[in-house]
């Protein structure tokens, strides 16, 4: 399981990386915004994308839309971990095809629950 973590704050990337390792996901890579993440996703075989929303350059929602629009990446599961919590925004992310949405600050348990749920749903689909 290869996971890309996208957040402009390196502290948050490290937190997520450590939590994922705790959950048994050791193969992670990092990017600091959508612009750097997209070519990494296109050039590699990732199984999962965890992204923030509010980032300079290319935001998480733009990255999500770009991923869904890319033939090779369109079915990549995407989990958004963000401080954005306007209803409009959550609806927007859902419509853009997000697989899970976690608001910051979050707990290790929430992260595990959402990841489990995403894979459960993908397996049953």
């Amino acid at each position, binding site marked *: 399981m290869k996971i890309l973590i996208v957040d402009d704050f390196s*502290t948050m990337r490290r937190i997520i990386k450590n939590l994922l390792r705790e959950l048994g996901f050791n193969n992670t890579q990092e990017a600091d915004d959508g612009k750097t993440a997209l070519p990494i996703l296109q050039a590699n075989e990732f199984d999962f994308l965890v992204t923030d929303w509010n*980032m300079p350059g290319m935001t998480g929602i733009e990255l999500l839309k770009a991923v869904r629009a890319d033939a090779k990446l369109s079915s990549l599961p995407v989990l958004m971990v963000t*401080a*954005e919590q*306007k*209803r*409009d925004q*959550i609806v927007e992310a859902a419509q853009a095809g997000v697989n899970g949405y976690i608001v910051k*600050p979050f707990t290790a348990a929430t992260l595990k629950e959402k990841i489990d749920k995403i894979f459960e749903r993908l397996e049953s689909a």
Partner: protein
Amino acid sequence: MSDSKSVINDTTLGRAHELIDSIESGDESSARAIMDEIASMREMDLFCEMGKLTRELHDSLNNFKLDSKMAGLAETEIPDAKERLNHVISMTEEAAEKTLNAVEDAIPLSDDIKASSLELQSRWDKFKNRKLTADEFRELSRDLDEFFPKISEGTVVLHERLNDILMAQGFQDLTGQIIRTVITLVHDVEEGLVDLIKMSGGAQAKAEESSKKGNDNVRDIVAEGPVVPGVAHASETVDGQDDVDDLLSSLGF
């Protein structure tokens, strides 16, 4: 500012000569009349100048009122920024407290494990050197039985505390986002003040400025950063992860 008229001119020079003449000739009344005349000339200039200044001040104030950006900044954005910065203080305080609590839990625990293992090791060394009696060995064996579960339980707690410290660091991202919005605000205020200075200096670049502002109304869904208590509108935002889950499930998730 207009150039105030110079007092050095032919008219004032002529009056001055007349004044000297009347003083030298001892003509009290004409000396007084000329002095009054000179004073009133001076006052006229002063009144004109004040009139101009008043007009400029009036225009500047009107322009300032027209500049809704500045008004908005002063009325809502600045108080919001104070709320945001206060929220940053409480978030950093909370994170520091969580971290310190975890450290204060973890240190005695690791000290305890270290002390027990050192003490057991010295007895174990005695045993290997055959300096332990049978009774002492039985006691050592019992203490070791107690020690092993204590290590595994202790390290589980240590791991939890380290995770608490890890999660507490999330404040850096959240406060960073909030501080960024305040930096943007400070920048806007700076620009507003520069505009204001330009206006009061008589520059009139405001026509195109205000036409530019009219386009800001198109609202897209953009990133807004973390919700700050007292700043966000409760109806527009969700309240925590459960609310997010409810909203998503209502959308068929």
